[in-house]
């Protein structure tokens, strides 16, 4: 038989549109300093920090199967790096921000032999212990203000609008770079290995995926990202204390954002961050109620809709804005022209016989 004409593609019409939408969003993001107020920029920096951190946590939990409750360890290390390099060593704060990521990655690699002795729930709480150890150590460094922390006074040398626009653009740059990097990475061989681990660790191992090495890489990358977030966030708010830098709420927010949005999806953290900040705005006057409602929604999602909101949408309407899997697209003499997932392979074989 002549066989069926087909091609394999990741893209769908929708995903191409989504990519252009992403490009447009990035352009809008970068243009904010031209038209936005300083207050808007400050708020946006916070939103972007939460989003990037959630992306990092999602990379670990959603793809690497690593549930960390201690990612704040690396937020804190990145944040304190700014104070060491800019405040005490005279480096330009904007140049010190990337170093925050580097220091966090180094701290992650140095402590990995400890935390990677644990798995599952042990790993989760073990990373939390590590974050506590970091917090106590930094509370005892008097050069960095000890338990009460200190202010980033060197920022006073930069004039106000340069400072605000600079921090904003760096945060936007980190968000765009992180989104791009995660997307490209997950489409690569590395991502294929990670997705395999997410679906079944044992099966991945048996297919030759180096599970241990991949997990370590994901952990280090996520810590690097968390370090950048800490550096840029505390450069924006100009003040640090051990309790704020190593606050467990960093991870609480990430968990809620990712779980509600859709764990193990690229779109989930974006959707989750939107919901997180919308709820915060709605419940601004109710104090602890906000976290209570977030927690209740997250528990409900875990128990009743574990794929999260985006996971539900994806399953219900087969929508993917940023698809990772490949699709077989048949054309010509197929039984019908249609685009479908892998299940169509069988038909293609049948047609050939």
């Amino acid at each position: 038989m002549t066989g069926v004409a087909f091609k394999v593609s990741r893209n769908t019409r929708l995903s191409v549109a989504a990519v252009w939408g992403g490009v447009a969003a990035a352009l809008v993001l970068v243009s904010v300093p031209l038209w936005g107020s300083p207050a808007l920029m400050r708020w946006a920096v916070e939103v972007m920090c939460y989003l990037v951190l959630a992306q990092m946590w999602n990379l670990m939990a959603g793809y690497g199967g690593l549930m960390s409750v201690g990612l704040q360890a690396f937020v804190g290390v990145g944040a304190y790096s700014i104070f060491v390099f800019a405040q005490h060593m005279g480096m330009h704060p904007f140049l010190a921000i990337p170093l925050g990521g580097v220091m966090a990655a180094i701290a992650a690699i140095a402590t990995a032999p400890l935390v990677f002795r644990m798995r599952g729930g042990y790993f989760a709480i073990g990373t939390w212990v590590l974050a506590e150890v970091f917090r106590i150590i930094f509370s005892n460094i008097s050069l960095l203000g000890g338990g009460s922390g200190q202010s980033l006074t060197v920022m006073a040398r930069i004039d106000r609008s340069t400072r605000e626009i600079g921090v904003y653009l760096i945060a936007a740059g980190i968000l765009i770079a992180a989104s791009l990097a995660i997307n490209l990475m997950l489409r690569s061989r590395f991502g294929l290995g990670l997705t395999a681990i997410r679906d079944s660790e044992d099966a991945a191992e048996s297919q030759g995926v180096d599970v241990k090495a991949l997990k370590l890489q994901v952990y280090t990358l996520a810590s690097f990202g968390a370090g950048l977030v800490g550096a840029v966030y505390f450069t924006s708010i100009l003040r640090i204390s051990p309790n704020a830098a190593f606050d467990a709420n960093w991870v609480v927010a990430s968990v809620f954002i990712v779980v509600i949005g859709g764990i193990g999806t690229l779109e989930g953290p974006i959707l989750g961050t939107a919901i997180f900040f919308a709820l915060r705005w709605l419940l601004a006057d109710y104090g602890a109620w906000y976290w209570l409602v977030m927690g209740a929604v997250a528990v409900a999602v875990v128990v009743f809709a574990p794929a999260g909101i985006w996971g539900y949408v994806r399953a219900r309407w087969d929508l993917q804005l940023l698809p990772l899997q490949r699709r077989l697209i048949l054309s010509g003499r197929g039984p019908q022209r249609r685009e479908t997932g892998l299940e169509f392979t069988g038909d293609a074989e049948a047609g050939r016989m």
Partner: protein
Amino acid sequence: MLEWLDAVIQGVLLGGLYALFAIGLSITYGVMRVVNIGHGDFLVLAAYLALWPVMQFHLHPFLAIVPVAALMFVFGYFLQRVLLNRTIGPNPLAPLLATFGLAIILRNGLQQIFHSDSRSFQIGQLGTDSIPVGGGIAIGVFPSIVFAVAIALTVLVSLLFTKTSIGVALRATSDDAETAGLMGIRARHTYGIALAISFALIAVGGVFAGVRTTFTPESGPSALLFAFEAVVIGGMGSLWGTFMGAVILGVAQTVGAKIAIGIGILAGHLVFLAVLFFKPTGLFARTL
């Protein structure tokens, strides 16, 4: 020299309290292979539950333990049956995420009701009494009671696990839930019992912790971390290992605080990390 001995003795007694924190965590992990991230926050919940009869009816805190432990037992059973059992399945992250979410709900719920004021239980003279044993060392009566209760409960739980049919069911489910199911042991019920026992035990720990120091809605995480460290130091699958782990943690903290004020907790964490590094299976690991 003697003051170091004193620090060690106080640490051992403190370990009794941590054992009460830790045994419940050890049981739920042993039976379900799931770490309850909300463990510490449920402990704080138990302390707040005891606050009501103590304030309202001037019930002695020790007596308040009985109804609170019973209530927590029932609560634990139904929490597992109604909610947490649904998360046990192919995705190992689900129960972690669910208990993590519950922890945040509890912490902020307590915050909303009781605010951040620190609370404690008063037991009068008994709280400060101590017996001098020579050399300037005195052993507190209340810490000794806590230690004795911790030993008694560890013995009781050990007997429960080895001598009763529910204990057999718990151990069988721990070994292989599927095969146990074939023998007519319903894992869903057994898991409920495991969390119920765990919750009853943290009710004891929560009230004693509230007598020893103060508690706030934010006290949960440190209780969880201490319990977890005790379990890991002791090693999996051994109740007495957990007890010993708690004692080692207590001693590390008091001796650390003796070396320099403010690093007691850090010393405990470092001992935990050292054990993890050199003997990741724990010091007293045993397969049940």
